[in-house]
């Protein structure tokens, strides 16, 4: 057919480069490219102008498979926010509190990062901006005790959603992962069967290590959703495709800036389009 450009190796190399540059990773990229090559071989795909569309569709399919909104119920829902150092947990909680309040929910925050300098002060400031209470202890206190008190306060003040900030921790530090499991057990013990989210915050600038982070945090406490931050930069965050494909964990929200309103629900279509911008 005249005007239809063939799909050749050069074109596939170009797409492969774009995918790797977006941090999709070697394995996820080669799997998607191989499946496209198979379609070309079986003459199911022969038009170069449709190649990008095909790849976008394959990525989109991976992302929508497990997608789900934030959970809450008729009593107290707890969102435990976790992740490695500096990814944007505390800031994200401030944004979420504001967003949920604007949706008419009663929100309270728990400052369970009792380790890092001025961590509780930072969350208290965000609580003020969002108009929510913040339960905190002094620096060095047991994070489990903060969570226990935050749950008690949430119940007493008839709050609907308690969001818990935790200290940044590398997934490879077993003592810190044990501390996280202990925090999680407090929640399970106090609120058995209640709706819960364990939200892993990932930085869009992170490369393949995000997959290792997702695996180990998931093994430790079971991750129900991801918040992908700093998408307002130039990094594409493609590693979430590998995470969706291997672990089935959905991205629920994305951070797009440092202001309180810079949080959006995750839109797989928008994300896939941005990968190829």
């Amino acid at each position, binding site marked *: 057919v005249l005007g239809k450009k063939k799909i050749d190796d050069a074109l596939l190399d170009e797409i492969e480069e774009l995918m790797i540059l977006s941090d999709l990773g070697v394995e996820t990229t080669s799997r998607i490219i191989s499946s496209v090559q198979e379609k070309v071989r079986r003459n199911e795909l022969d038009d170069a102008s449709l190649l990008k569309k095909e790849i976008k569709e394959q990525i989109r399919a991976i992302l929508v498979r497990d997608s789900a909104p934030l959970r809450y119920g008729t009593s107290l829902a707890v969102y435990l926010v976790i992740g490695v150092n500096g990814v944007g947990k505390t800031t994200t909680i401030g944004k979420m509190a504001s967003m949920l309040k604007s949706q008419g929910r009663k929100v309270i925050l728990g400052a369970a990062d009792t380790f890092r300098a001025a961590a509780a002060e930072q969350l208290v400031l965000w609580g003020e901006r969002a108009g929510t209470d913040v339960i905190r202890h002094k620096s060095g206190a047991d994070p489990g005790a903060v969570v226990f008190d935050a749950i008690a306060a949430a119940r007493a003040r008839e709050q609907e959603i308690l969001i818990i900030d935790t200290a*940044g921790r590398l*997934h*490879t530090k077993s003592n810190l992962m044990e501390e996280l499991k202990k925090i999680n057990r407090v929640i399970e013990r106090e609120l058995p069967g209640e709706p819960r989210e364990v939200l892993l915050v990932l930085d869009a600038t992170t490369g393949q290590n995000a997959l290792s982070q997702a695996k180990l945090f998931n093994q430790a406490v079971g991750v129900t959703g991801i918040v992908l931050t700093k998408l307002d930069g130039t990094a594409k965050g493609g590693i979430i495709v590998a995470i969706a494909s291997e672990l089935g964990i959905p991205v629920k929200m994305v951070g797009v800036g440092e202001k309180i309103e810079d949080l959006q629900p995750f839109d797989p279509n928008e994300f896939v389009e941005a990968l190829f911008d």
Partner: protein
Amino acid sequence: SLSDKLEKVFKKLKGRGVLNEKDVDEGLKEVRMALLEADVNFKVVKDFVQSVRDKSVGSGVLDSLTPGQQVVKIVYNELVGLMGETVTRIALVPNRPTVLMMVGLQGSGKTTTTGKLGRMFKKGGRKVLLVAADTQRPAAIDQLVTLGKQLNIDVEASEPGDDPVEVCKRGLERANRGAYGVVILDTAGRLHIDDSLMDQLSSVKAAVKPDEILFVADSMTGQDAVKVAKSFDEKLDIAGVILTKMDGDARGGAALSIRAVTGKPIKFVGMGEKLDAIEPFFPDRVASRILG
């Protein structure tokens, strides 16, 4: 490991007789994969593999009994050579305060590293002043003031909303008056594509003329490391790089990418959250880590 993978590839190829250049290319695919999986930038990998190829073909790998090991050796040496000499120090100026300025993306570890460097210089007998020039992140000033208290190091504090340029000028004036040996300016994290905030850093540079501008980068950074490092370097002419969070299991390919695109030395690596967790940069250690 990469050497095992390469041995397997070359064993299989040698089974068909003498190795040729095409066989070397087969082996180099493994090298390319290993570097990409370690987060080295795609384009940096391309150039790197090309130079390894040139060295391999020219160095008798084809006739070697252990071509896989030969190639790994070439890769390792290329990596170490590219990363620069070990221990590039921060040169302290005599007779006036040495001014260091920390810059980088949000959350990379600037404030914590400011504390770590302060502690290091104090241990070396210097009088240190930390300057809280991040007047925009909630509780950033509190964070640095707290670190100063923990380390018993003076901090030039500020108020949220103060102009960072004015804060840095004040800090330098205080350092001159008080005969401080080292002044470290902690700036707010920012995006390399935020022109007004990048201009703000240029204004700080022009006002206080730092002796070294240190780019603080997260060692887990992926492909984006090249864009970010290039922007900060082109805008500010950085003196060197500090790679943080190396106590994790990130392979650290960003180290090679940043070095390749800026040509600037990596001076230190952050090895933990505690204020003593900083080490000089050893290229051979990072090279082994990147190779896995």
